[in-house]
């Protein structure tokens, strides 16, 4: 088997297992109240981490590049209550413009 297919197979199987682990083992039982509260706070914690890492992360280092300008444009668009599609296009457009100027 080629290395490519080995990676596709192993990563695919691992991801299926990681995603399915809790739903298969826990079933649909309700979580105890403190765990449910932590569960509800997972979304903001993980989303904020994704925003941070994908804005200034570059492998194992932090960097400032045109993505910052794109995300700043998204912040402005969100403050103006723009629809999501406008937010996304604004972020890509501004990042592309800064990338072209830099």
């Amino acid at each position: 088997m080629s290395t490519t297919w080995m990676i596709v197979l192993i990563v695919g199987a691992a991801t299926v297992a990681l995603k399915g682990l809790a739903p298969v083992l826990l079933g649909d039982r309700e979580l105890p109240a403190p765990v449910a509260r932590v569960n509800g706070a997972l979304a903001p914690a993980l989303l904020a981490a994704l925003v941070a890492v994908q804005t200034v992360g570059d492998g194992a280092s932090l960097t400032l590049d045109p993505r910052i300008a794109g995300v700043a444009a998204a912040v402005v668009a969100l403050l103006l209550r723009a629809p999501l599609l406008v937010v996304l296009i604004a972020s890509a457009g501004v990042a592309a413009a800064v990338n072209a100027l830099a």
Partner: protein
Amino acid sequence: MAAGARDVAPIAFAALVIGVSYGILARDAGMGVVAPIVMSLTTFAGSAQMAAATVMQDGGAVAAAVTAAILLNLRYVAIGVSVAPSLRGRRARRLAEAQLATDESWAISQDSGRVNRERLLGAGLVLLVAWTVGTIAGVFGGSALGDPATYGFDAMFPALFLALLVGQLGDGRARAAALAGALIALILTPVAPPGVPIIAAAAGALIALKPPKEATP
């Protein structure tokens, strides 16, 4: 399910575009045409697929590519815990439904601290199609487009997650969890392997262990 599918339309546009950039990257990394498409259908997790392709392009070992991708996907254990109470049916069905949980489908299916199953599945299906179609376009037509950064596509994902995050900041605990998550991820990025900072950021949610103010005498 229809509501999840409708609300996810702008996100599907983003997934389509990032799918194209993944297809380009994977083809350039020597993964061929079929393997990246199969990977989009089965792994269905953008950051892990990007990371695996990047390691291959840099001439890294299979173990390095697999490790990077799996570390990035460890957060799906936490996401799995979050969706578990909302899924239905036997184990095989729950396993299948859980595959439609992605960062994006999970985020938009949040409904007062719980996951709305219908929205999760509707959004997940639309995203799977968009992501795979994007990948196909990328592997076949990508070389004509060039570097995704030229178009600012690399800024679109953090912008997307930011927009999803804004909808989650209803109460003080959520805001504190978000702040803690972002700080943990930023502090760990220079010192931990890629993927670890994101899963460690889940610890930011522990702030919610403290009971809400109304509940304390």
